[in-house]
């Protein structure tokens, strides 16, 4: 068996500080503090594409379910004929 890791999963990274600094609480917010309303415009779903519809149709379903104007998928999973 070959180790099942993509290149980025093999690189170990640490965080180094160049310049210590505080961030002002008044601006922005930590991603995990976003509300659903904010996530609907600035979020991503790790979706399991079902067999049958095209990738494009699936991202249309997502739009309709969530009542939003825009959704885009990454990388077409072709339909096997």
């Amino acid at each position, binding site marked *: 068996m070959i180790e*099942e890791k993509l290149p980025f999963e093999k690189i170990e990274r640490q965080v180094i500080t160049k310049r210590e600094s505080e961030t002002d609480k008044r601006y922005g917010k930590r991603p995990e503090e976003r509300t659903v309303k904010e996530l609907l415009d*600035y979020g991503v779903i790790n979706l399991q594409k079902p067999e049958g519809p095209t990738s494009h149709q*699936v991202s249309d379903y997502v739009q309709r379910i969530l009542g939003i104007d825009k959704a885009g998928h*990454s990388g077409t999973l072709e339909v096997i004929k």
Partner: protein
Amino acid sequence: MTGVLPVALGKSTKIVQALLIAGKEYVCLMHLHKEIQQSQIQKSAKELVGDIKQIPPRKSAVKRQERTRTVYYLNIYDIEGKDVLFKVGCQAGTYIRTICHNWGKKLGVGAHMAQLVRTKAGPFTDKDWTTLQDLKDAYEVYKEGNEEPLKKIILPVEKAVGHLPRILVLDTAVDTLCHGADLSTPGISKIHTNINKGDNVAVMTLKEELICLGISRMATEEMLKQEKGIAVTTERVFMDPGTYPKFVKKKD
């Protein structure tokens, strides 16, 4: 075909660009056209790893021109008669259908792809995916006033760049980046190790919000040492200008 399909919402849709070029993993069921000794299949599998040349299949969206792709790993899980189940990790844009076709040719019996499931797309895996039904249910619950289930399903856009090295910048550097400016070294607060010149990087605030994606112009060590110069050229901006205040450079 089924599998991991990251879907980005609203103004974050262009984040899919970062995922298109990320590595992928698939589980594939290949059907051989004649039975052949298992040991031969096992042996030939080793030759499919590394740099391979492919011509995209007829029905693909790209030009049918030979190109090189890297297969990072390929492991056989099961062989039953003419059916071979395997898992493959590969560079973006690798055609598994073509791997099956060429593998069958190599074995001298012919083969085709019978089933395919994508199990990884960059940082997203089949371990924590969501079905359309789960999404529908969670949205109903949200409409009734409970946003917790939906909050577990819709991940912050930052999750989609989890495979990229990151650079965190000072509050004072954020707004100019939002306007599309490049990142210069004095704006850097924290930085990942092992960044090389030319890498795709995610530039973030100290609260770890995504500001923009860019290409590093220096390696980590140089970014730490230099007090002037461009560290990252900005490619795609995600954060709206005005999220952080505008800071005017003090004149000495």
